[in-house]
C-alpha cells in the first residue's frame, strides 16, 4: 500500500540556518514525489517534484529535495532559512504505475523559523 510518513510534527530553526524537513514513503512501483507548502489560510502550493533523473531536484523559493531510493526518502532542504518560510509542509507520493493518478500525502510538518 502507498503511504507517506513525515516523522516530525514540527521543526524549529533559526533564520539563516539550514533546514531539513523529513519524508519517507512507500509505494508498490516507482515513485513520483512532491512537496507542497501551505501558508496560513491558503491552499497548498506546489514546491517541487521528483519524477526521474537527477536525485537532487530544485524548486521554488530556494528549496530543494533529494530522492534516496535505498532509504525511500525525499527530504526537503534549504541552505538558509527565512522567517517567511514558516508554514506547513506536506510531502506526497504517487505510484508511477497508478493510472488513477492518486496522490498520498503525509500528515504535514510545521516549520517555524525564528529571527
Amino acid at each position, binding site marked *: 500500500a502507498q503511504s*507517506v510518513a513525515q516523522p516530525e*510534527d514540527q521543526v524549529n530553526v533559526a533564520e539563516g540556518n539550514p533546514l531539513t524537513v523529513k519524508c519517507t514513503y512507500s509505494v508498490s512501483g516507482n515513485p*513520483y514525489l*512532491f512537496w*507542497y507548502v501551505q501558508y496560513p*489560510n*491558503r*491552499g*497548498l*502550493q*506546489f514546491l517541487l*517534484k521528483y*519524477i526521474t533523473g537527477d536525485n537532487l531536484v530544485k524548486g521554488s523559493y530556494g528549496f530543494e529535495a533529494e530522492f534516496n531510493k535505498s532509504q525511500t526518502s525525499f527530504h526537503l532542504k534549504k541552505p538558509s532559512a527565512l522567517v517567511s518560510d514558516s508554514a506547513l509542509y*506536506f510531502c*506526497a507520493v504517487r505510484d508511477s504505475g497508478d*493510472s*488513477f*493518478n*492518486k*496522490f*498520498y*500525502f*503525509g*500528515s*504535514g510538518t510545521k516549520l517555524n523559523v525564528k529571527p
Partner: protein
Amino acid sequence: EAGVTQFPSHSVIEKGQTVTLRCDPISGHDNLYWYRRVMGKEIKFLLHFVKESKQDESGMPNNRFLAERTGGTYSTLKVQPAELEDSGVYFCASSQVRGTGELFFGEGSRLTVL
C-alpha cells in the same frame, strides 16, 4: 489565470444538517479531485473526476457523502446528514493531465460540525 476556487471557506453546522461545498477547477482541467484533512492528520483522498465521470471514489467515507460534477466544470460535495467526525478541511484540486503533473489546490473549505 484564475486558480482553483472553493466555497464556502468556512462552514459551521449542527450535527444532522446538510452542507454543500463547491469547487471551481482551473479552466480546461479535466481532472478534479477532492481531499480531506482531519485535524493534524494526513490529507486523504476522497474521489477523482475526469470531466463529469467519477474515475475513482474509493476514498469516500460513506454514503452520506455525494459528489457531482455535472457538465464537467465545477463540482459539489454534499454531506447529508453531517456527523461530528466529518469536521475537517476539504480541499479540491485539479490538473490538466494525469501522469507526472502536479495538482493545483484550492484554499480549502473548513467544515465544523457541532
